[in-house]
């Protein structure tokens, strides 16, 4: 087991890019290697040691034996754990854009907020954000129609706009509230939101399921009432309580399921 601790000593105004510092790349790095490493900052590179104090303990045979701990406010560190396939990263602070993007395995925990694009195009593994995130969490790359396809994102705080855009697999669990257009263009997978949703979940969705335990502001016209379900089972998960089930988005002949907590959304009954 190898523990790599990076403690922030100077916050850069221009974001640092960390996609090269993932367990897959650094599992066999010694302390020297980190000290000699130049991190991309904008269109240049600077020594990692300009920004972080380093500590490396133990050895690892592969990325799965690596635990990276980022101490401090990493609100200007982009691409944390981007494309990682194994191992663990813990951020004790905020994370900047694209945290956990394209990851295929392993685990990332952010003990703070994450900026937009967290878990973009995720294929596997686990991303847990103790705070909130902003727009396009678990989405596709801009322009692409193939979004997150596997793994799990857990958000303890709130989500921004277009959560799980183009979702085609995997699971997103938001314990807080969520802004507009969760699950837009989704074709598969599952989104659970425990808090309130402003409006329009599931716009243009073709398939998959969205479950909302809070109150929904405005429902899209493309969703038609299906039935009232009690204690539904969705994707092998059981939920207790009464839910109003809608099917949509009929604009695209969609077969997606939208479950709204009946108690909280009484006026829709």
């Amino acid at each position: 087991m190898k523990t790599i601790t990076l403690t922030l000593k100077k916050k850069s105004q221009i974001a640092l890019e960390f996609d090269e510092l993932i367990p897959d790349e650094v599992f066999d790095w010694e302390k020297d290697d980190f000290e000699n490493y130049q991190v991309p900052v904008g269109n240049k590179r600077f020594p990692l040691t300009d920004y972080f104090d380093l500590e490396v303990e133990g050895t690892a045979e592969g990325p799965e034996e690596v635990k990276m701990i980022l101490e401090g406010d990493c609100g200007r560190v982009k691409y944390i754990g981007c494309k990682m396939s194994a191992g663990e990263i813990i951020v004790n602070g905020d994370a900047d854009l694209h945290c956990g993007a394209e990851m295929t395995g392993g685990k990332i925990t952010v003990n703070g907020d994450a900026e937009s694009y967290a878990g973009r195009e995720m294929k596997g593994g686990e991303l847990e954000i103790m705070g909130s995130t902003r727009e396009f969490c678990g989405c596709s790359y801009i322009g692409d129609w193939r979004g997150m396809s596997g793994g799990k994102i857990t958000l303890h705080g709130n989500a921004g706009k277009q959560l799980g855009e183009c979702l085609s697999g995997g699971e997103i669990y938001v314990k807080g509230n969520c802004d507009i257009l969760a699950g837009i263009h989704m074709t598969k997978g599952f989104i659970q939101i425990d808090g309130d949703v402003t409006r329009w979940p599931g716009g243009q969705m073709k398939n998959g399921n969205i479950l909302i335990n809070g109150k929904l502001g405005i429902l899209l016209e493309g969703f038609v009432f299906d039935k009232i379900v009690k204690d539904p089972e969705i994707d092998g998960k059981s939920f207790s309580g009464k839910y109003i089930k809608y099917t949509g988005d009929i604009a695209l002949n969609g077969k997606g399921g939208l479950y709204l907590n009946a108690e909280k959304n009484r006026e829709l009954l």
Partner: protein
Amino acid sequence: MEYILKNGIVYDPANNIAGEKKDVMFKDGKIVDNVSSDAKVLDVTDKIVMPAGIDPHAHVAGPKLVVGRIYRPEDSRKGVTTKTDVCRSESGFSIPSCPATGYRYSRMGYGTVTEAAMPPLEAKHTHEEIMAIPNVDVTPLPLFGNNWFVLQWAKEGKIEEIAAFISSWLKITKGYGIKIVNPCGTEAWGWGGNVHGIDDPAPYFDVTAREVLRALSQANEMLGLPHSIHVHPNDLGHPGNFPTTINTLECVKDIEKSSGMRDQTIHLTHAQFHSYAGTSWRDVESGATEVADYINKNKHVTCDVGQITLDETTTMTADGPMEFDLHQLNGLKWANKDIELETGSGIVPFIYSGKAPVSSFQWAVGLELFLLIKDPWQVCLTTDHPNAGPFIRYPRIISWLMSSERRQEMMDNLEVRVWSYKRTSLGSLDRDYDFNEIATITRAAPAKIYGYQDRGELTPGYNADIAVYDLNPNDIDPIKEPAAIEKAFGNAMYTIKDGQILVKDGEVVKVVPSHTLWTNVNGFEEQEKAVMEQVMPTFNRFYTVKFENYKVHDHFTPYPIVTEVQAGK
């Protein structure tokens, strides 16, 4: 500066040199017979030496490339490189950035490319983009097949007016020749329709593709343009379209050629998309045998193939209705544009996959055409970049053409699906191209087809556009080593353009501005003047731009190469 490329094995089909060990010399940008003893020696012992490549049909500059890049950022993120001392950073796979387009052609040993669809209204923009493409000369072909003036005069049989219009519009747009895309079909798309076959009239104008094709071909020969009409026929990509293709070729057969620079009177582009039999995608069969037979029997036709490369790419064409069909088929995002009185266009991303029966079938039809057309001077290597695949796959296609074993292997181990041999005759074709035939379809034939008098051969006086590939033809067995062929043709040992070494060992070492090739017709000034008087009222009434802002001024072509043509000679 004098140079001598020493001891290379030269393939120069235009001069009937097929694998001869000899020196190639050049001085001040031109090929020469001999050089002084001061000449710099480049040792290329036992390496393949060819004229630089010429791409006769691609989409590399113009508004639809820009729309493609804007609406496909997910394509731009592929192929990203960091800048070097010589090159800017690159981006894009199927729609690379302008500099990347130049570098990538250069790395493959290419020196010239045709931008095959320039809407006259967007010509200024096309030229701006050509200015941003380095290292490879660009020949833009303006679109005329759905132009209102042409449709009207074709209906009335006024060939001289059309000729004068084209002569004038080549000057206005700085274009090289006549491109025709889905004649009457794109105009019909303005009414939400399409035409099927060459005798289906366009709405309002009530003129058929046959009439338009014949009129434009006659006008082309009246002017004696260096290139023939360049035709993307009707019914692209529709099962059962091969009769339309053959009718298109047949309908201009009797029109007499007036230019001595070329052999053909019609160039059929991306023939692969036009060689399908059957009635639907369920019962589709290959029509390549029929199309190839026709081409084998008729010397007035040349073609390029538009080979499927089995990649995720971006389709973009002036064939607006076809792009809508494609969007209906694959459900992916669609861009559409109407170009006022001239044409239209559409863009849709497309994934050609060896796992899909239809893509496998299309892949096989393209290869069938290559293998069934007997005379390599009648067929050129293209992918209709980016429609059937990006141009960076040319080396891979070369490896397929040179190795029947590789093709068989792909069919055997299911890299392509069974439709590739059950719906086509590819499984029974064991022809293997040799290096001389490859040099013909990638250089000599396109140069001849375009009537180029300064490139495509290693004749003294011609431009020193030369490619050297790190292959010893006496050593390598292309049938057994397709990967080595692909690697060598993708990474030129030297690419020399106008006597300057631009690529060495697969790396771009020098960046130069590209030239724009266009045709200036002389001796038709009176007719042009008369026709402009007819055009201007309609122009002023319907165009959204003023004529003063329409013309491509000289500063849009800072490095022009003008082919001067005497009308009718």
